[in-house]
């Protein structure tokens, strides 16, 4: 177990290293640079700026300098704003994580509850309604949903402000972000719950005199959750890192939208910083979901 964990962490470090290489060199291969579009900059100013960010050095040396900085916990400063990258990422991640965390929690809890209900009330009106709504929700792309929500609740009904500089209302973005994973988890839970309820061990539990509620929530649900966990790990990672589209529509200034602007700006340190951050988050979530998997399903061995 510990050995497996160490192996996975080492592998994760290698993965992240490879990602930095690929990101660094492809980023530099894209035409344009951080200071190319600067309107009023004379060649001298541009050269001075490039020297400041080491952009005048050979590519390989630039990479080495960047990685050295990383080891010292220095992710550099933005070529666009001049602010510290680590700081910027953390700030915008806070927004993404708050919205994403709420959305993920709602998706998981509601998904499991609705999925279980649909399985238990199979072939009833309740089941049909849940299946219909969840199918509908998985079919609507989040940007369409976000737009509709914004239009109906902010512009028509005026329940929420479209945009405000100081106080953010997260209700609409959370709904927009959670609906798809919630529906997906609902359907996943329903299928695996039905499967679990038909298993021999459920019959054994019933035959022991275990109450219906415990049969469902102890014996069946635990087994039914195994497939759900595989989906939830990566889902949380992608939701936490923010959906670029939803963040842009609701002008949240989260990590997702920062990432996109950094690319259009050719803000090299910011691109690298966000890429590494997202990679670490993704790899970390996968590792955690593996461990949870092991907790729920003892048959899984790691060696």
């Amino acid at each position: 177990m510990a050995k497996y964990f160490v192996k996975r962490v080492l592998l994760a470090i290698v993965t992240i290293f490879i990602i930095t290489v690929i990101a660094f060199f492809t980023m530099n291969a894209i035409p344009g640079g951080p200071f190319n579009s600067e309107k009023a900059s004379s060649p001298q100013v541009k050269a001075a700026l490039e020297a400041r960010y080491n952009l005048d050095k050979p590519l390989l040396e630039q990479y080495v300098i960047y990685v050295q900085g990383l080891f010292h916990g220095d992710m550099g400063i933005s070529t666009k704003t001049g602010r510290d990258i680590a700081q910027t990422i953390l700030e915008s991640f806070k927004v993404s994580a708050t919205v994403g965390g709420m959305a993920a929690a709602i998706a998981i809890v509601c998904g499991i509850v609705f999925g279980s209900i649909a399985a238990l009330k199979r072939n009833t009106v309740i089941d049909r309604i849940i299946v219909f709504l969840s199918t509908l929700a998985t079919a609507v792309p989040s940007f369409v949903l976000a737009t509709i929500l914004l239009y109906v609740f902010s512009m028509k009904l005026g329940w929420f402000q479209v945009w405000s500089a100081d106080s953010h209302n997260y209700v609409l973005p959370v709904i927009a972000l959670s609906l798809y994973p919630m529906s997906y988890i609902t359907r996943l839970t329903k299928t695996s719950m039905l499967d679990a309820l038909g298993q021999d061990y459920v019959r054994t539990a019933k035959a022991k005199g275990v109450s219906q509620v415990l049969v469902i929530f102890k014996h069946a649900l635990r087994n039914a959750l195994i497939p759900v966990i595989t989906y939830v790990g990566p889902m949380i990672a992608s939701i936490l890192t923010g959906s670029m589209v939803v963040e842009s529509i609701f002008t949240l200034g989260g990590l997702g939208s920062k990432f996109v602007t950094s690319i259009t700006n050719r803000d090299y340190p910011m691109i690298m910083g966000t890429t590494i951050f997202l990679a670490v988050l993704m790899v970390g979530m996968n590792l955690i979901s593996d461990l949870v998997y092991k907790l729920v399903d003892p048959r899984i061995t790691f060696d």
Partner: protein
Amino acid sequence: MSEKLLEVKNLHTSFFTDSGEVKAVNGVSFSLESGKILGIVGESGSGKSVTAYSIMQILAGTGKVVEGEILYKGENILNYSKQQMKNFRGKKCSIIFQDPMTSLNPTFTIGNQLMEAILLHTDRNKEEAKARAAEMLTLVGVNEPEKRLKQYPHELSGGMRQRVMIAMALACEPDILIADEPTTALDVTIQAQILELMKDLQKQLGMAIIMVTHDLGVIASMCDEVIVMYGGRVCERGTADAIFYHSSHEYTKGLIRSIPSTQNMKQKLIPIAGTPINLLNMPKGCAFCSRCDNAMKICLEQIPEEIWVGEDHLASCWMNVKKQMEQEKVGASK
């Protein structure tokens, strides 16, 4: 005569499927006295498991007892409330299943699953329940019980798991143990061990057993009484000896001809020809009729009544009726 512990009267159980009503059990009656072993034999699909599940009320969602009574110490358990039924299962009557590989929950430890029943049905606290669980494991011949309690089902062999199932079933000292083909999924040496264990435990604890099987050898070696099922009906019942040496139903005769034994070593084994009946569309007469070599006209038209063919021996076959009528005629003409 000892007290009747369990009486099943005219049990009809059906599954209501999309393609219609599957009549899995069609009027089964039998009774079980305390401390006795009753065998139920019959080929695959004859309704043995459905009969057992009906008693436990653990039929699949579409299954329902549509007629009949199941009396436990004189009380009809079909009228039990949910709470009473919970108390019946596992405490008064336990069941072990055919496949020990899938009958234990893979995500909980052996200890957890054993203690669950004990905590549910007795006043024992957690510590005591654990001690009881370990005691039960020792009783069923599982070594290192303390260690096993912490293990998960997948860490145990099939034979071990069936022992755990038996321990679980007997933990609350039920009056009745239903064993639904407890050895079918195990290999031969393990089968013998498990049967030996069950016989021992029956002597020690004195519960009554309903032994469901298609292995006539098992029946011969352990059962006091046997019922033979075909098409969801009882076609013959009696002591193991009567069934073996004086089989009086054409199906039972075929069943016995189809198993190898020391007596018929040199003869060819004769399988029963034909396929089992369609439970969606039960025939009007005897269920076995279409596969019976000696079928008569009446067999097609009327279900044969159960009649005495010997002491403690009943069969429902028109052949016996015919035979008795002939004997009466001979007697009368003398």
